[in-house]
C-alpha cells in the first residue's frame, strides 16, 4: 500500500493564529483533495495537558454512545474520563495511564479504535472526501499550535479509516507520507521481531513505527530520521510532528513534491503551492522547496 496523496502542515507562531488554526488549515487540506480524494486525516496539537492525556477515539458507528463509554470507563477504572464527541470521533481526557486504558478499551469496546495518545496530539481520520471529513469533524473550528494533515488516493478495495494518515506510534508523535517505500516489509519484520505490533499493511506505518522505536531508544527525532534514512529505501516526503515540533524530510531522490512558506507568523508546508495560496500575507512569505535529505525542523 503506497502513499499517493497530498500532505499539509502548519505551525502557528502567534496566539491569534492558534485561535483560528482551523480556518487557516482546513482550506489547505481541502485543496489537496485532488491528490487524494478517498480519505483524509489530520493530527491537531493542542497545548499540552500537564497531567492528563488525550485519547482520540473513533468508530464506524455514526450513532455511537460516547457518554456511555465515558461513564463505563470511570466506573470500571476509577478515574474521571470526560469525552468531547464529534460524530464518530471522540476525545477522552483523563489521567489514566495508557497501559491501563488501552487494554480496557480493547476488551470493553472492541469496535472503538484508538487513533492517538498523548498530552498534546489528537488525530482525526476517516474514509470519505476530505471536504466531507473536514465538515464532519468541524476542522474550521480547530484551535491549537500545529497540525499535520493528509489526503489519500486509495488502492485497496475497502478504504478503511485505519489506512488513512496520519500514522502515529507511541505518544505525541505522528507522520504523514507522500511517496512509496520500497522495503517496508523488511523494516516491518525487523520491528515485529522487537515486539512492535502493526495495525495495517501500509508502508507509512513501517516508517512511523521505525522512528518512534528509535526515539524510545533515546534518539531525538532528528537523529532517528538520520538512522531511518539509511534503513528506509524508496521515495518519500515525510512530514512529522511531536508536541513541540514540526519536522520535514525528503529522500535523496526528492521525487515527491513539497513546498514551504514561512513568515514571522507561521510555517506552512504542502505538496503543492496551490493549497497555500489563501494564507495571510502569502505574497510576502519566504516560499521555498526543501532540499533532498535535509531535515527541516520548526519548534512551537
Amino acid at each position, binding site marked *: *500500500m*503506497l502513499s*499517493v*496523496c*497530498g500532505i499539509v502542515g502548519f505551525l502557528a507562531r502567534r496566539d491569534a493564529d492558534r485561535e483560528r488554526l482551523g480556518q487557516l488549515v482546513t482550506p489547505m487540506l481541502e485543496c489537496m483533495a*485532488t*491528490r*487524494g*480524494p478517498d480519505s483524509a486525516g489530520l493530527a491537531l496539537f493542542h497545548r499540552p495537558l500537564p497531567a492528563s492525556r488525550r485519547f482520540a477515539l473513533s468508530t464506524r458507528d455514526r450513532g455511537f454512545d460516547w457518554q456511555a463509554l465515558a461513564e463505563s470507563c470511570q466506573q470500571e477504572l476509577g478515574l474521571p474520563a470526560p469525552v468531547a464527541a464529534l460524530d464518530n470521533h471522540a476525545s477522552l481526557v483523563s489521567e489514566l495511564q495508557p497501559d491501563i486504558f488501552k487494554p480496557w478499551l480493547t476488551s470493553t469496546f472492541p469496535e472503538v479504535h484508538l487513533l492517538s495518545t498523548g498530552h498534546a496530539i489528537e488525530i482525526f481520520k476517516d474514509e470519505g472526501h476530505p471536504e466531507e471529513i473536514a465538515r464532519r469533524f468541524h476542522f474550521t473550528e480547530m484551535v491549537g499550535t500545529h497540525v499535520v494533515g493528509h489526503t489519500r*488516493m486509495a*488502492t485497496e*478495495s475497502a478504504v478503511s479509516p485505519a489506512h488513512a494518515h496520519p500514522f502515529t506510534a507511541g505518544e505525541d508523535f505522528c507522520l504523514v507520507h*507522500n*511517496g*512509496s517505500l520500497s522495503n517496508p516489509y523488511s523494516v516491518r519484520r525487523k520491528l515485529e521481531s522487537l515486539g512492535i505490533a502493526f495495525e495495517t499493511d501500509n508502508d507509512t506505518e513501517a516508517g512511523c513505527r521505525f522512528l518512534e522505536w528509535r526515539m524510545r531508544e533515546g534518539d531525538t527525532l532528528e537523529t532517528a530520521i538520520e538512522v531511518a534514512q539509511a534503513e528506509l529505501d524508496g*521515495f518519500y516526503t515525510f512530514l512529522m510532528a511531536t508536541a513541540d515540533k514540526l519536522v520535514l524530510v525528503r529522500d535523496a531522490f526528492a*521525487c*515527491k*513534491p513539497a513546498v514551504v512558506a514561512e513568515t514571522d507568523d507561521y510555517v506552512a508546508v504542502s*505538496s503543492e503551492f496551490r493549497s497555500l495560496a489563501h494564507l495571510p500575507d502569502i505574497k510576502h512569505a519566504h516560499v521555498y522547496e526543501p532540499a533532498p535529505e535535509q531535515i527541516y525542523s520548526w519548534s512551537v
Partner: protein
Amino acid sequence: MSSDKSIQREESASFNEHSLFYIRQAAEYGLYEIRGMGAKRRVPSFDDLIFLSASASRYPLEGYREKCESKTVLGTRYAKQPIELEIPITIAGMSFGSLSANVKEALGQAATQMGTSTTTGDGGMTPEERESSKTLVYQCLPSRYGFNPNDLRKADAIEMVLGQGAKPGGGGMLLGQKVSPRVAQMRTLPEGIDQRSACRHPDWTGPDDLKIKIEELREITDWKIPVYVKMGATRVREDVKLAVKAGADVVVIDGMQGGTAATQQVFIEHTGIPTLAALPLAVEALSDMNVLGEVQLIISGGIRTGADVAKALALGADAVSIGQGVLVALGCNHHAYQRADGEEVDVTADYAKLGTAPGYCHHCHTGQCPVGITTQDPELEPRLIPEVGAKRLKNYLQVLNMELTTLARACGKSNVHHLEKEDLAALTVEAAAMAKVPLAGTSWIPGTGSV
C-alpha cells in the same frame, strides 16, 4: 569406460549447459546480455485455456451467414473524440529506430486497411507513419525523444507509457549500430552512440503527479483525444487502480511475454507476470472501482492467434495489442525475405553471421535484421517493401479477426465483446489459478476457495 548414461556424464540441473554458457559469457565480457524479443521460457498462457462453445445448452451462430460484430470503441471516459476501431486488435508501440521507416509505413497501411490503430514508439512520429495510419496512437515516453506539440495535435490518442512487459521498471535501449543519421536527428542525439533511455518520466513521478500531467496533456489537446496509460504487468491490481485514479481513459497492460527491441535479458526473463495472470487482475481492479465499460482495457504480451484474442476478450479485455506477432507476419525469423516480384531470397547465411538461425533470432538490438525489419542499415532495410509487408500483415490481422469471430459465433455471440470468462475452462491447474476459470471438467478454481 563410461557410457553417456552413466553418472560420469550426467548433466547438472543447476549448472546445465545453459548456465555454464551464461557464466562464461559474463566472465568474458563483464556486461549483461542485451537482446530483443520477449521471454523465451515457458509460462502459463492462453494456450492453456479452451472454449466451452455451444451445443445444446447454448446455440451457435452460423459462421458464414450470421454477422458477428467486432467494432471496438476506446477512450469514452473523458475524450471528446474516442477511438473507433473495426477490430479489437491493435498494433503495439514500436519505435522508428528499432524498426525501419518502411516497416512503420507497412504497419500503418495494414492497420488502416483493417480499420485499426497503430502506435508510435520511443523515437517520435514519422511523417510516413502519420500519413499511412488512419488511427495513430502517440506514445509519451520517459525519454521524450522527438516528442512535440505539433505531432501531439496530429495524434488520435496519447499513450502515457510507464513501462512495458519485457522490462517493467527498466528504461529502453538502442544500441549505436541502429542510430543512423535520421534516427539520431529525430532523437536529438549523436549518431552511432548507445542510447540508454530513462525509466522514469522527466517531469513527474508517481500517480498523484501523473494526474496533473495527464490534465496538462488534455489541456494542450483541448480534451479531444483519449489518454491511455500503459504499464508492464507486475502489481497489476494496484497499478490499474492508480492509473484510473490518475485519469486514464484506457489502461494498457503488457504481460511478461511482451517483446522489446533491446533490453537486458535479465529483465526479459525475470520481471513481470504472465499476460494470463495479469489480465484477470486488471479486470478485477476496474470492477472494484466500478469503471468496467467506462475505462477500457487493452492487454498485450504474447498475443499470437485469433484464439488468444478471443480468450483475452472473454477474460475481460476490450482489445489486444500485438507487437512481436506483427513482426513475424512481416517476416521476422523467416529464412527468406520477399522481393517485389514475389520471389523469396534465402538469408539463412545472414542469420548465421549473427550467430543464430531462422526461428531462433532475437537480434533486433544489433540492427542487422536479415529480413530488413529491425534495422536502419541501408542495405538491409529495402528487404522489407512496405506494400509487401502491409499485405502480409493485413492477411494476418484478417485471420485473427476471422478466428475471433468464428469462436465468438460458436459460443453463440453476435458481438465479440459478449465473450465472457464463463465461456472458458482451463487445461492446467496453473492456468485455472491465474485466469480464475475452472479446471476443465471440474468447477474448481484454485485459490478462490470455490469448489
